[in-house]
């Protein structure tokens, strides 16, 4: 990184200043007050902005400190090369705060705006925050010695991006410290310390718990004893009240005695009344429940006699019953018997139906007789007739084919004959007739036409006949000519089998003719044979049949033969009589069965209907029987009940009256009266007994008031007055106890409140102890984390201690080659000097040495931090404290480092001007 130029518009006292820079040493030698430090801060602010903006002190607040003296625009620009690219940063600043600030960045070659930097371009370019920058690259006047920031550590460690957590080290440590300070047990403000104190306070509160609890318990026991006393007193009070009541009751003994006597009198009267009624009963007192029961029976008997009349048969029913009893006197058929009869009747009906189907009707019988007469001579078999029909069919087939065979034979014979003769032309008989008729026809038509057209002519019948004949002649002539033409065409075509063309065919034709002749002969013989056989059948039957009706006759005969045989078969079966015999048997069986019940039954009666009548009669008869049986049972029971009732009345000492129900009702009423009197008597008796039970009858009957009172109370000498006195004493004692109890309860409540507080304290102590444990754990953990982080940071730095020390010594020898001091570095890269056998802090050295060490330390760190692109270095007169010998070393130092770095060297004394200024 190299600065090229800068322009300061207004910055502090500097205004409208342009400077250009080159590589190596750029000394700026100006007198005091020119604004060298202001210029150095201009560079700082251009890269990092203002610091301490919130400070009220103008010297500390950079924005105010470097505000333009001449007013005008506050700011400027700076041009530099970074990573081989030329940039220009332009910044202007508001006088009071950053709201009016502007910041622009440009590519200095093209003049185009760019966005390569953040709002703090120094951090992007140098990878350092401002404090780190001020402790390394920016070497200010009187601030040469430096210390190491976390950012410097990170830069030295060459860690970038996410790994650069070293930069947060200070922040983390600060945060951890803040937290541990908040928690610390060693300070009063620490939460742990406070919590421990609080726990101690709580423990002090809780320590009184056992005493409080004991006090509470004792108080509780006192309350219990007071309660017991109170309960005892209350019990005594109850007893006294009881005694008091007893004594009061004794005053009423006289009245009670009179009351007792009254009870007894009433009881005696009730007893007399009861016994008077009781004597009305001849024997023992009947049981009311039994009387009620018998009374119910008697009433039932009365109701029963009425209902029995309703249950008797009507005259019609009686008549019917008599009829049925006469039928079934000896035997009432069971339902199964009737069912069997019904089954037999069904079988009979089926048999009758079947027999009726076998019997021939008169028409059928007549037909059978006719056919028997027809076939009287001969009854051909069906098979014979079927055979004759088949033969006749064959005969017809042969006969129909025979004419053709004969024609073929004749044709074959003619062909053979024609071949045997010469081929002579045949006369054409009609050769000219046709032409002649055509001409005649035309002539007649034409004549007719002319006649009709002539003035004398007309269209009369002769003309029409003439023209008609002409047309007819024309047609016939045309037909003849057409036939002639065809015949001539035929004759012009050669014959296909003409012997002239095929001589071998002639011989085969002869053989064929011969064969045909044999076949014709055989056929004629077979036809004759069939006709004779058929005729023979007809003759045997005795009928004459023309040959053309033969076939139909044979068919008819076969049908007739079958029909005749069927009729004959049915006639034979019917005449055999097996089924009729069975039918007769069943009819007889059924008749016998029904006749048993119905003697007047006729033989041709309808059996089915009779069986149904029997079935109905049986059911009716059974119903009558049941009714009769029921009537009998009711009658028997009634008789039995009446007898029993009479017996009962006798048993209780009464003579049965005619109206026993009325007699029983009377007895029942007497019983009710007796029960009522008995109840009155018992009530009186119970009242007396109750009185006796609830009262000391000895006392009442004895009438000695004094002695009885002593016995009742059990305490001789006790009176109502003495009881009242004791009651008053007890009430006073109870009041006293209650006051004590109230006091105790108040004490209890107070102790309880204190124990509640203790319980709260215990609870709070438990929670606080838990929290303390938690906080201590956290505190210890945070402290350990701080410690280990610090150690880690030291270890982190230790990796770069030796390289930094070497670089340091290199620069130190440049500045002070003959010094011979021994320097060491710690993990924080602090330089310590070893003198007089001990490692000492450089603070003990002179200002000059301190500047020397600080400068070398800065350069050592910068060397380590920037291995590739070197930054510019700003030296704001750092050698002011060096003696002359060291100043000569400073020259070498500057020239040496100028080989690798661009140095902006600001000084006010020519003696410390080690380079040639290129600046105005």
């Amino acid at each position, binding site marked *: 990184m190299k600065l090229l130029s800068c322009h300061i518009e207004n910055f502090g006292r500097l205004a409208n200043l342009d400077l250009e820079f080159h590589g190596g040493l750029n000394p700026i030698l100006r007198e005091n007050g020119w604004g060298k430090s202001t210029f150095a801060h201009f560079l700082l602010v251009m890269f990092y902005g203002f610091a301490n903006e919130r400070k009220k002190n103008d010297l500390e607040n950079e924005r105010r400190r470097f505000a333009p003296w001449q007013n005008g625009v506050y700011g400027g620009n700076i041009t530099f090369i970074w990573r081989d690219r030329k940039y220009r940063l332009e910044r202007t600043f508001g006088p009071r705060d950053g709201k009016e600030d502007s910041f622009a960045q440009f590519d200095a070659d093209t003049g185009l705006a760019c966005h390569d930097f953040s709002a703090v371009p120094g951090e992007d370019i140098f990878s350092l925050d401002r404090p780190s920058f001020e402790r390394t690259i920016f070497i200010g006047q009187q601030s040469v010695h430096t210390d190491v920031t976390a950012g410097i550590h990170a830069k030295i460690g060459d860690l970038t991006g996410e790994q650069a957590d070293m930069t947060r080290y200070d922040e983390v440590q600060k945060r951890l410290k803040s937290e541990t300070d908040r928690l610390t047990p060693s300070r009063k403000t620490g939460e742990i310390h406070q919590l421990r104190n609080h726990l101690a306070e709580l423990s002090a509160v809780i320590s009184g718990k056992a005493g409080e609890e004991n006090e509470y318990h004792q108080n509780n026991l006192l309350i219990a004893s007071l309660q017991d006393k109170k309960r005892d007193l209350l019990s005594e009070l109850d007893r006294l009240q009881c005694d008091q009541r007893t004594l009061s009751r004794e005053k009423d003994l006289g009245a009670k005695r009179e009351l007792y006597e009254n009870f007894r009198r009433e009881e005696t009267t009730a007893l007399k009344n009861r016994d008077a009624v009781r004597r009305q009963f001849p024997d023992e007192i009947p049981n009311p429940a039994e009387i009620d029961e018998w009374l119910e029976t008697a009433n039932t008997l009365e109701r029963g006699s009425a209902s029995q009349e309703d249950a008797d048969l009507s005259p019609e029913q009686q008549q019917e019953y008599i009829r049925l009893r006469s039928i079934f006197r000896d035997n009432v058929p069971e339902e199964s018997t009737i069912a069997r009869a019904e089954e037999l009747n069904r079988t009979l009906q089926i048999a009758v139906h079947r027999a009726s189907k076998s019997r021939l009707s008169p028409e059928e019988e007549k037909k059978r007789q006719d056919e028997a007469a027809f076939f009287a001579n001969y009854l051909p078999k069906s098979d014979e007739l079927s055979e004759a029909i088949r033969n006749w069919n064959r005969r017809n087939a042969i006969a129909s084919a025979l004419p053709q065979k004969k024609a073929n034979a004749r044709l074959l014979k003619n062909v053979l004959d024609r071949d045997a003769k010469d081929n002579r032309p045949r006369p054409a008989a009609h050769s000219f007739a046709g032409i002649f008729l055509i001409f005649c026809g035309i002539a007649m038509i034409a004549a007719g036409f002319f006649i009709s057209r002539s003035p004398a002519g007309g269209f009369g019948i002769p003309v029409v006949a003439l023209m008609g004949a002409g047309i007819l002649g024309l047609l016939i002539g045309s037909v003849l000519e057409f036939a002639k033409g065809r015949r001539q065409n035929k004759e012009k075509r050669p014959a296909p089998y003409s012997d002239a063309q095929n001589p071998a065919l002639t011989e085969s034709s002869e053989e064929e003719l011969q064969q045909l002749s044999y076949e014709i002969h055989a056929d004629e013989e077979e036809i004759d044979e069939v006709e004779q056989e058929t005729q023979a059948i007809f003759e045997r039957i005795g009928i004459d049949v023309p040959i053309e009706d033969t076939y139909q006759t044979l068919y008819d005969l076969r049908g007739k033969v079958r029909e005749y045989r069927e009729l004959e078969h049915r006639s034979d079966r019917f005449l055999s009589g097996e089924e009729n015999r069975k039918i007769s048997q069943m009819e007889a069986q059924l008749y016998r069965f029904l006749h048993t019940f119905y003697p007047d039954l006729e033989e041709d009666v309808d059996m089915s209907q009779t069986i149904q009548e029997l079935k109905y009669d049986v059911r009716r008869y059974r119903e009558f029987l049941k009714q009769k049986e029921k009537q009998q049972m009711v009658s028997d029971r009634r008789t039995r009940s009446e007898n029993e009732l009479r017996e009962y009345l006798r048993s209780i000492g009464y003579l049965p009256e005619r109206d026993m129900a009325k007699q029983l009702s009377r007895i029942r009423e007497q019983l009710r009266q007796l029960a009522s009197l008995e109840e009155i008597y018992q009530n009186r008796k119970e009242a007396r007994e109750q009185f006796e039970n609830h009262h000391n009858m000895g006392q009442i009957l004895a009438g000695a008031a004094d002695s009885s009172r002593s016995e009742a109370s059990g305490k001789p000498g006790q009176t109502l007055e003495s009881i009242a006195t004791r009651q008053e004493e007890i009430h006073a004692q109870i009041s006293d106890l209650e006051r004590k109890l109230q006091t105790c309860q108040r004490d209890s409540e107070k102790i309880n409140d204190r124990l509640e507080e203790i319980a709260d304290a215990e609870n709070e102590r438990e929670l606080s102890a838990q929290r303390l444990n938690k906080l201590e754990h956290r505190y210890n953990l945070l402290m350990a984390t701080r410690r280990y*982080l610090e150690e880690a940071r030291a270890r982190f730095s230790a990796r770069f201690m030796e390289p930094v020390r070497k670089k340091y010594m290199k620069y130190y020898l440049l500045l002070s080659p003959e010094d011979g001091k021994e320097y060491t570095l710690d993990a924080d890269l602090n330089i310590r000097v070893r003198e007089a056998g001990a490692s000492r802090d450089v603070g003990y050295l002179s200002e000059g040495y301190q500047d020397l060490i600080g400068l070398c330390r800065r350069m050592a760190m910068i060397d380590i931090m920037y291995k590739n692109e070197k930054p510019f270095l700003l030296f704001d007169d750092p050698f002011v404290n060096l003696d002359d010998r060291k100043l000569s070393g400073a020259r070498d130092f500057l020239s040496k480092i100028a080989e690798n770095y661009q140095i902006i060297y600001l000084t006010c004394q020519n003696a410390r001007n080690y380079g040639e200024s290129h600046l105005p």
Partner: protein
Amino acid sequence: MKIIHCADLHLDSRMTSVLNTTEARERRADLLKTFMNMVRSASEGSVKAILISGDLFDSERISSNARNTVFETILTHPGILFFYLTGNHERDGFLNRLSRRPDNLLTFGPSWCTYAMRIDRAGRPHAEPVEEGDPAGGRITITGLELNEANAPVAAAGLHLSPEDFNIVMLHGQVEDYPVKGRPEIIGLNQYANRNIDYLALGHVHKYHQEVLPPNGAWCYPGCLEGRGFDECGEHGYVLLDIEDRTEIQRREVPVLTGRGLMGSGFVLNGSFVSVPQRHFHEESIDITDCTSTPMILSKMEKQLNFPPDDLVKAVLTGTPDVGCEKNTVQIQNYFQAKFFVFRLVDQSRPAVDYNTYALDASLKGEFVRTVKEDPDLSDDEKAQIIRCGILALAGEDIDL
């Protein structure tokens, strides 16, 4: 006859160690409500007696609200006998403060006291103290003793029960196989076996437990009615005993103990556990080893914490998530706080450090991890926690430890 056996109700318990003041107040109301519900159920279910085997209240100091509630509940249910054995927590705190004791409240003392139960024609139960020499057989007896240092060593020897009766014995303490000298709360089972006890109704342990007591009996802790902390998760309730009188049938010698059926002397005992709590405590471990961020942890927890909104839930984060895992316990706490009546988050997860990742890391973080790792005085757990703290600090994150 139906009898309820309950214990360790700890009414008026402060519960402020696990709940804040508001939550604890509501929970105390829950406990009272559950007690009242149990009595109401007993009344509706024709239960004749309720055995309270100690620790009805949490301490001797009983609030007037709790005392009045219990007193009125007992008083307004005369059809139920309350056999109340005081526990080590409340001592006589309840009984001493009563100006009068309801007739249906029956108590015990430092000497054995036996009541024989009977039901009158109206179906109302009665209990009469059994005196020595009373004719035994066919009775249901309730016997109890408040153990203390003086009576504990000789208590079992002084217990005389008839084998012809169905004997229920109430005690409050911790059962062990053998007694321990100087510790009256220890109930040595060997001393109470073979003493004709059909059902030993115990209190002191807050979880339901039941086992055989030789020869034909059983001992049983019903547990508490409601959980009071995350150490009392799971089901809670009481035991409902249904004692069927079969004295006319020959005594069956073989006890049946299935959690529901026990055979006594001439009586058949059917016991069943009835769960009643209004809210349940749940403690759930969530392994977040494979989680790398708070949303992932929330998602995993959401799947696991599938409990009714009225319940009290404690989630314990476990596992070894990566040291760089982003885990915000405040966010998690706030997220689930709204989902349950009470939600507690405990982070027991331990960060896992893959040291190989940092072996070549040139950054300060890498150096830090290596530095911590090389310290032989630190345990692995400490190393992991310090590393997590350092990494969070370097990353500028909140240090949620």
